[in-house]
């Protein structure tokens, strides 16, 4: 039937169509969040710069390296799964997940520090976006860790492709958030 022809481009996507729908949706949400951040920033550049100076840039820089490395390990896990090396797949997943935990550790230390200073989402528009965007992202890191656990239980090549695609999205979002929120002057 004609349907099979029109569905072909979707069938060529690695993993599962639903994961790609999710990834596109997530990118739309974070993209819209970043656009809104930039738009509001225009109304108060000095206030945003002042608020940004309170952030821990080096910690976030380390976190970037941590997360990208974790993404690399997740990609290796896909390779191992394709080669049928189950034990290696699980070790790579464990390492990727471990780095995810490190990321969260650093992130929550940062949140605790801000909370101790009395900085809350209502303190300044900059912090509304800071907490919303990095908070949503951290929630996705937690979701990624759950996915890694599920992948370790059922390490088929297809599952690995789907899970790793999600983790790369989490990676990508952080790589976009980091310069815009922490570095942009």
């Amino acid at each position: 039937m004609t349907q099979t022809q029109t569905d072909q481009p979707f069938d060529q996507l690695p993993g599962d169509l639903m994961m790609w729908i999710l990834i596109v949706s997530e990118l739309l949400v974070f993209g819209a969040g970043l656009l809104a951040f930039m738009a509001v920033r225009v109304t108060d550049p000095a206030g945003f710069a002042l608020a940004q100076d309170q952030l821990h840039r080096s910690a976030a820089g380390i976190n970037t390296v941590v997360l990208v490395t974790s993404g690399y390990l997740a990609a290796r896990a896909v390779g191992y799964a394709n080669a049928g090396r189950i034990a290696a797949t699980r070790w790579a997943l464990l390492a990727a997940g471990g780095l995810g935990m490190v990321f969260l550790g650093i992130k929550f230390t940062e949140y605790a520090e801000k909370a101790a200073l009395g900085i809350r989402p209502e303190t300044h528009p900059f912090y509304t976006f800071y907490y919303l965007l990095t908070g949503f992202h951290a929630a996705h890191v937690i979701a990624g860790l759950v996915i890694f656990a599920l992948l370790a239980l059922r390490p088929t090549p297809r599952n690995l492709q789907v899970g790793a695609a999600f983790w790369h999205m989490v990676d990508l979002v952080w790589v976009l958030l980091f310069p815009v929120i922490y570095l942009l002057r």
Partner: protein
Amino acid sequence: MKYQTQKIALVYFVVAMALFAVQVSLGLLMGYVYVDGNFLVDLMPFNILRMLHTNSLIVWLLLGFFGAAYYLIPEESEREIHSTKLAYLQLAILVLGTAGVVVTYTFNLFEGNFFLGKEGREFLEQPRWVKAGIVVAALIFLYNISMTVLAGKKTAISNILLLGLWLLALLFLFAFVNPANLALDKMYWWFVIHLWVEGVWELVLAAILAFLMLKLTGVDREVVEKWLYVIVATALFSGILGTGHHFLWIGTPGYWQWIGSVFSTLEIVPFFAMMAFAFIMVWKGRRDHPNKAALLWALGCAVLAFFGAGVWGFLHTLHGVNYYTHGTQITAAHGHLAFYGAYVCINLAIISYAMPVLLGRDPYNQVLNMASFWLMSGGMVFMTFTLTFAGTVQTHLQRVMGMGFMEVQDQLWIFYAMRFGSGVAVVLGALLFIYSILVPRGEIVKPGPVERDRLTRDADHVVAE
């Protein structure tokens, strides 16, 4: 009709249509209150009329969903409904509860009584015994349907429908939370009504639409299911946090402004997907199903839901816009077309599809039904435009220029008069629909020579079951 227990749907649909007639008639009365402010003021104050109008809407739509489930679950699971008695008991409880609510609103006989009296709320206002009855009825329904599905074939359509109906019942539990704080009261109200209409009801809607597309167009189930999953995923992704767009400017924390704006903007996606789905299925479909009225309602549903829920929703969903439009006639415009397009139309679509089968009438009385579609939908679209213009003027005069509320209402009279006219069309359309479903029998339109010739040559023409 393949399964005897599908007959249960008949009674549900009839009760639903009766309440539908009551609901639109009350709407017409309210439309006249907008034209003449003192109309019925001693007999039925506006707030009572509005409670009856909105609550009867919700109840008849739910009855329609229940009827749809009783109709399509046997076909999907390929077995009879678990218990016919329970299904009728459920309906009896719901009808008794509805009568109780109407009596309590209208006569207020049990003021202050914990179980029998009103709760003093603007919305979710049912006496506690009715709320408890709704929960019992929902439990009976879920038990009955779940037992049927568990024992039979599990399809994507029945799974999604069941998921939607389970979540629908669970979310109603928030109706029991009645905080004294007005902002919190509204927050819990949205936990019910938003997560219903912009969350789990969309699952029910998509499942019914998928069932209709499957039957009416004959497209492969595999294709329908893929679309169904995409629609459901995008609906839940955008709809759950989209609740935030109701928390703009009602006293909830400021971060909801961005959560609400961003996620609710994406709520247009599942409605667009539904519209694309319906039209692509019809284009690809190989079946020439004789029930064109059901197809018209299904396509009308997809289009009007996209405009009413999607476009008119987006119109005032960004918090910067909503700061000015909150609670104006813009909201009323959106509310009317969204409920009509998404949930009224899907109910009328499944009723149009199922009733001829349930009544054993074949072929279908198409012309009157299709005329009612155009009359009702035309009226509703016109109403949406008049209310949108009224809302625009109101926003400017009241929120920008700072004029008083009643002073502004005087300026809007012409729009309200036109809205009343469109309301007449909607009520006539609704009555015509009900008449066309229940009364005429065996109106056979014989195909003319050109059509007959086409049908004999068309290899893809399949006579429907």
